[in-house]
């Protein structure tokens, strides 16, 4: 695979040109990868530079102040995002894991295929459409609430968790399954006592990735939890503030103070999401290695 010239190669102008074209195209591909990394770096550095000056203890522990005053923080948005993401996770993880179990352990192949297709289609539904769906289903009659928003977020999380869990379940060696059955365990018991514990690392990874995704989603919250008080709300039947929506609203404000808040909130959100992304990635490599070793 090396680019060194074989001494037996006859060098003609044509072969020289072919090598030159090859080198140019390899350079192009390398610069494309470099470009992606540079863009990632630029975004991270500019969010950090703009956001850092406003990130202090008050930012996490105080609520927004009325327009024109200085100081304040986004405690209400942080609490709101934590609560809504937690509720969405509590819905999406059990359902997603169950779907994966059905698909890998019980479903006839054709049914499993169909459910996989449905999951992929659900993953492709624009999140703004999910927002409108939840608005029509839960908000139009009874008003905005954190519960409605969480259900919207859980629909975003569901395909992520189900597909990733299915992948790890499929990696669990058949020998383990057969071993369980041979000991006289029922299929359900085999799944619960043998397969799930083996795959728990993978499920955790999927959960982390999905939580990171949901925590940064804005569109499902726009119609379900966007009219809220500037105080910490813990009643799930009321709308709650959230970090993404704070960024969204403040990013379009002409006020420099608002933009500053948006940058700081973006820094907090981006840091959490990227750290989660890296942890998820490292965990998934480890799980994969462990399961492969068990084979």
């Amino acid at each position, binding site marked *: 695979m090396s680019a060194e010239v074989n001494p037996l190669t006859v060098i003609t102008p044509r072969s020289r040109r072919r090598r030159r074209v090859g080198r140019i195209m390899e350079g192009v591909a390398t610069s*494309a990868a470099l470009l992606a990394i540079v863009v990632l770096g630029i975004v991270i550095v500019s969010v950090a530079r703009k956001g850092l000056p406003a990130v202090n203890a008050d930012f996490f522990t105080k609520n927004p102040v009325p327009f024109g005053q200085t100081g304040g923080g986004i405690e209400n948005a942080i609490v709101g995002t934590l609560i809504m993401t937690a509720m969405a996770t509590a819905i999406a993880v059990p359902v997603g894991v169950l779907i994966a179990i059905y698909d890998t352990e019980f479903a006839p192949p054709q049914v499993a295929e169909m459910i996989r297709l449905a999951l992929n*289609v659900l993953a*492709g539904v624009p999140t703004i459409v999910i927002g409108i769906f939840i608005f029509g289903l839960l908000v139009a009659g009874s008003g905005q609430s954190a519960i409605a928003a969480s259900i919207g977020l859980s629909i975003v999380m569901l395909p992520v968790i189900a597909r990733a869990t299915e992948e790890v379940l499929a990696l669990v060696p058949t020998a383990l399954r057969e071993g369980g059955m041979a000991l006289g365990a029922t299929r*359900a018991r085999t799944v619960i006592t043998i397969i799930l514990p083996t795959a728990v690392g993978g499920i955790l990874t999927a959960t982390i990735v999905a939580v990171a995704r949901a925590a940064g989603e804005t569109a499902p919250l726009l119609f379900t939890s966007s009219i809220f008080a500037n105080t910490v709300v813990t009643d799930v039947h009321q709308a709650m503030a959230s970090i993404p929506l704070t960024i969204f609203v403040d990013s379009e404000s002409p006020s420099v103070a608002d933009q500053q808040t948006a940058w700081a909130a973006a820094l907090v959100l981006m840091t959490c999401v*990227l750290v989660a992304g890296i942890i998820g990635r490292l965990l998934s490599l480890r799980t994969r290695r462990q399961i492969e070793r068990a084979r």
Partner: protein
Amino acid sequence: MTLRGVSGAAALLVVITLAAIAYKVIDQASSAISIFGLGFLTSSEWNAVTNQFGALDLIWGTAVTAIVTLIIAVPIAVAIGLFLSELAPRRLRAPVGTLVELLAAIPSVVLGLWGILIMGPFLEAHIEPFLSSRLGFIPLFGGTPSNVGLLPACFVLTIMVVPIVASISRDLFDSVPSDLKNGALALGATRWEMMRSVAIPQVSAGLVAAVMLGLGRAMGEAIAVTQVIGDTPRRGWSLFGQADTLASRIASQYQGAATALQTSSLAYLATILLVLSLLVNVSAQVMVRRIRRRMGT
């Protein structure tokens, strides 16, 4: 309650959710559908005062942003896929791949914030004047530079689409049997000739599916686009001008909708978006399935 029954019910829930989404979205759009009919698709009027609504300008905006985004993003993404699969030194593959995937993890609202406050002004001050002075004779690059508009929207979407298409292309290129790749190299092909004549044709159907998924993402993104596109419906060729897309219009107007008909018209936009995303995603899935069957896995 057996595990089989409970898990089967969960699986059924996916199908029910999909059906419920379609039903509820169309249901909310029903009054707009009955009043405007299919004429909604060909009218560019969007006027809350006269209660006249149409989607033409928004369909235009969605099409232009999606097409321009794919034109920029697909070559870059496929090149990254080739780099990660064929060119990168083994030790660099995992870290570079992770960095590219992290780009997809940045929340769209953060990209939008960066787009409106940093990239937009930069484009307005440096890139757009340059393009318009050198290439202004092309309608795409005519017009007055602006910090919001189609071009920033396309760039932000490109940042979102590239990692998706790149990681699928990498997996595709990895799946090409190394016998084929080595065979081409042994016959004297350069690495680029091997990629062009063996690797890319082997996975071309998969690449099309990857592009479809990227298209779905580009069409459906509402938040980041509404932050940078200017929210002004317009049909025109200049990439510097403001515009609006189906998704971004819903995001920017749903709360402030003045009349029930306007709310319903926004749900009509969501219906169009839903139909488009179903078409794109299902055809991508069908394509992937066909490839799998051909490869016998």
